[in-house]
């Protein structure tokens, strides 16, 4: 396998224009003759399916939820970045590009990031035209806020429900195409395998989650917009159903998996309260604009907050990073929270939490001012914890939130399997080793509305694709494999539930391949994960049958994939002997505890190729070149 990023040359400002001009076009009359499968209906998948339908392709879109509107993009709270410079505060496409490359700790592809920054402005226009109710100023113009470490106000938002509103915009565009007859939706339908015919991705195998029926669908191109794999940690801010199965099974059919160890920990989540916990809830990062983060100066200080005087509080982010303060990027904020808790200064019953305090902001803006900005987040916090954040400071702790790793894609968003595209969080993406706040929505929609629809067309126009049918031997073989795996899971009849295995796997990864990692821990984790996987296949108990609505069976298949992915994550984390972004190796840090990159040896994308179960995967490297933004140590002091 060779990795060709197919990045255009020339001045960076002109690369996307040039690439578009060089693309082959599909004759408008021929578009409806092409079948395109889109798996996933979130911001990336939903917008891609809608746009491909608008262009006239024949689209089939699959999602495991009961409606495309449920995709987890819906839970994004804070906002979406765009280099509009409406606030006249010095923003530009170049600055958004620069911030994203730097924020990604110099592990992303410059050309892709520049394109993303360029397209960001079109996304806002598109969403406004769809009727997305963005926040407005009294004069009727769009409102902005600064977000997640940016020093300009470039984030557009719809209260604390930006993801919901953007997703509903894409969903409505998608449903419009359903009526137009260009898109057929398959809800409650999960992709379980990829079909490769003569080296090209030509179809998928699915399971109808209501009837359990295994079915084959053939197409000329396959698009995966299936999101990230944060649920490998069991507890994450992802939805319960979020999973890696589509991308993992594509990987097992030859698609390279890039940078699996690049996972993002979000600094502001509600702390874990007990063993029964099923997920972690994010409190939008926008809260850090006005909230101040602190812990007591003394260890194990159990006093209520109103009895801890200012002089005995440590506003550790403001102290360590005077210029960015509470707005340092996510990885920095998370690691610092872990550090103060490791020192024994964490708060709450478990000691795994820090305060996020709005007392000063309420003095400045009034309670109403705070309610206007964060009302729904405060309500959510109160619902979950039973504490009123208007009266006592919130407690927060980092949690797994986003995965920068994913299927390797070239500049055209195509994986190493011709005809298989990956978009949104499912690809290894434009965020390098760390994603900036409000950039996930931007990337998902950039890929879906404005990049993929062109690049898929170019692929179709430049390849001769013979028609394939779902009754071909390649499809039958994959169907049989999928059915065999299901039968095997149901026939183990062991003594442990799927959830108990998943929880144990998640704990292992969180402890050894989470916020900070070291060689010894990673190696022992890899071994333990292997043992646990073996036990899973001996001792899991999945009740019910294959041909019925069986939620335990759905979960069992996903967890089986998580086990294999977890091993690859550890392998990737072991091999990358440097610290960068979300990947913090304790052995590689500066004297004052910041991440220490090794550009000489690790300025590349690590793309892993499957070699068979039980075999070590092959590592391929895509070197990263920085012509415009020169690598420097990130400093937020």
């Amino acid at each position, binding site marked *: 396998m060779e990795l060709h990023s197919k990045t255009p040359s020339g001045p960076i400002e002109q690369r996307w224009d040039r690439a578009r001009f060089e693309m082959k076009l599909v004759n408008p009359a021929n578009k409806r003759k092409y079948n395109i499968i889109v798996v996933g209906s979130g911001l990336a998948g939903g*917008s891609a399916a809608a746009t491909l339908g608008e262009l006239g392709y024949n689209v089939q879109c699959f999602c495991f939820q*009961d409606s495309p509107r449920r995709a987890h993009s819906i839970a994004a709270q804070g906002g979406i970045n765009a280099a509009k410079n409406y606030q006249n505060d010095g923003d530009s496409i170049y600055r958004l590009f620069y911030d994203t490359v730097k924020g990604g700790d110099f592990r992303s592809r410059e050309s892709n990031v520049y394109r993303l920054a360029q397209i960001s402005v079109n996304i806002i226009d598109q969403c*406004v035209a769809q*009727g997305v109710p963005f926040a407005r100023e009294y004069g009727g113009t769009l409102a902005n806020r600064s977000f997640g470490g940016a020093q300009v106000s470039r984030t557009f938002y719809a209260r604390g429900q930006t993801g919901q509103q953007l997703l509903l915009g894409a969903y409505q565009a998608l449903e419009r195409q359903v009526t137009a007859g260009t898109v057929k939706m398959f809800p409650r339908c999960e992709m379980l395998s990829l079909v490769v015919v003569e080296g090209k991705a030509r179809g998928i195998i699915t399971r109808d989650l209501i009837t359990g029926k295994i079915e084959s669908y053939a197409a000329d191109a396959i698009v995966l917009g299936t999101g990230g794999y944060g649920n490998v940690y069991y507890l994450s801010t992802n939805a319960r159903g979020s999973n890696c199965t589509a991308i993992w099974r594509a990987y097992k059919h030859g698609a390279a998996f890039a940078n699996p160890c690049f996972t993002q920990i979000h600094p502001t989540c509600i702390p874990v309260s*007990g063993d*029964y916990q099923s997920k972690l809830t994010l409190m939008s990062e926008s809260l850090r604009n006005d909230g101040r983060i602190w812990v007591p100066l003394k260890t194990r200080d159990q006093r209520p907050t109103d009895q801890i005087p200012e002089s005995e509080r440590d506003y550790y982010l403001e102290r360590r990073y005077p210029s960015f303060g509470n707005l340092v990027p996510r990885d920095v904020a998370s690691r610092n929270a872990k550090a103060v808790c490791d020192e024994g200064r964490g708060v709450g019953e478990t000691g795994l939490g820090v305060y996020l305090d709005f007392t000063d902001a309420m003095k400045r803006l009034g309670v109403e001012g705070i309610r206007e900005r964060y009302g729904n987040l405060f309500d959510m916090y109160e*619902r979950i914890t039973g504490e009123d954040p208007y009266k006592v400071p919130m407690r927060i702790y980092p949690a797994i939130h986003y995965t920068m790793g994913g299927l390797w894609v070239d500049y055209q968003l195509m994986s190493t399997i011709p005809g298989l595209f990956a978009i949104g969080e499912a690809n290894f993406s434009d965020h390098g080793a760390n994603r900036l706040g409000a950039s996930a929505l931007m990337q998902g929609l950039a890929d879906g*509305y404005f990049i993929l629809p062109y690049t898929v067309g170019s692929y179709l126009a430049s390849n001769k694709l013979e028609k394939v049918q779902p009754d071909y031997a390649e499809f039958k073989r994959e169907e049989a494999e999928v059915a065999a795996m299901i039968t095997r899971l149901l026939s183990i009849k062991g003594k442990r539930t799927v959830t*108990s295995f998943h929880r144990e796997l998640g704990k292992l990864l969180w402890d050894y391949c989470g916020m900070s990692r070291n060689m010894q821990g990673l190696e022992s984790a890899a071994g333990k994960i292997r043992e646990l996987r073996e036990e899973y296949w001996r001792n899991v108990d999945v009740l019910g049958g294959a041909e019925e609505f069986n939620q335990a069976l759905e979960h069992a298949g996903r967890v089986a994939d998580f086990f294999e992915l977890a091993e690859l994550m550890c392998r990737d984390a072991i091999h990358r002997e440097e610290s960068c972004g979300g990947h913090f190796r304790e052995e590689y840090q500066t004297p004052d505890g910041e991440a220490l990159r090794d550009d000489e040896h690790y300025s590349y994308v690590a793309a892993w190729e499957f070699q068979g179960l039980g075999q070590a995967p092959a590592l391929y490297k895509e070197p990263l070149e920085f012509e415009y933004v020169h690598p420097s140590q990130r400093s937020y002091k």
Partner: protein
Amino acid sequence: MRLTLHIWRQKSANDLGRMVQYEARNVNPDMSFLEMLDVLNEELTLRGDDPVAFDSDCREGICGMCGFMINGVAHGPRRGTTVCQLHMRRFRDGDVLYLEPWRARAFPIIKDLAVDRSAFDRIIAAGGFVSVPAGSAPDGNVILVPKQKADLAMDAAACIGCGACVAACPNASASLFTGAKITHLGVLPQGQPERCERALRMVAQHAAEKFGSCTNIGECEAVCPKQISLEAIARMNRDFLKASWINRGASRSSGGE
């Protein structure tokens, strides 16, 4: 805490269902309602009993996938809250709770507490959108939207499509759901060109899905986890009436031949 649960069990759409009694022991007040059911399901699985099927996904009250009746109230006793965000501290030791799926002709039961809400997608597909293909939009600030209108649109757009309004309505009407989308798009300048057509088509689809009519009872508003106001239904009725008057015949003639 200990609770007695009576849960509706039904194997599939075509089977007869029945209430089955379970004891939930060791309920922690900090659990969410769904986490309490997760724990029950773990116990059932270890005993070899079929776990209770229920839908959920984001578990933070925004995806709209979860929802069932708790003692006859959609999403349970706390206002403005989905079941995933309802915590056990709202209940008392020894409480007896009856859990039932959304019941409506337009929401066939899939299994236990899970129902099919695809009728909602079809109502949106009938007209709940602005026809603006990707790439055709003017600059975002070209059309100014007064803040009050943007806020009003946002209030309605907050609907999560969970179906509680239908479940609570004695007529099983989806008027609040349909009205929320008509309101969201109808108050924004971007939604004006298709405003009449939208109301006609969505209301027609609502009827075709066999949802009942609205008789202004207001149960929907009371249980809506996003506290969408009944005013949305008034706006829907107004748009529908106006559209029926000024658009007589237009919707048919715009359709083709």
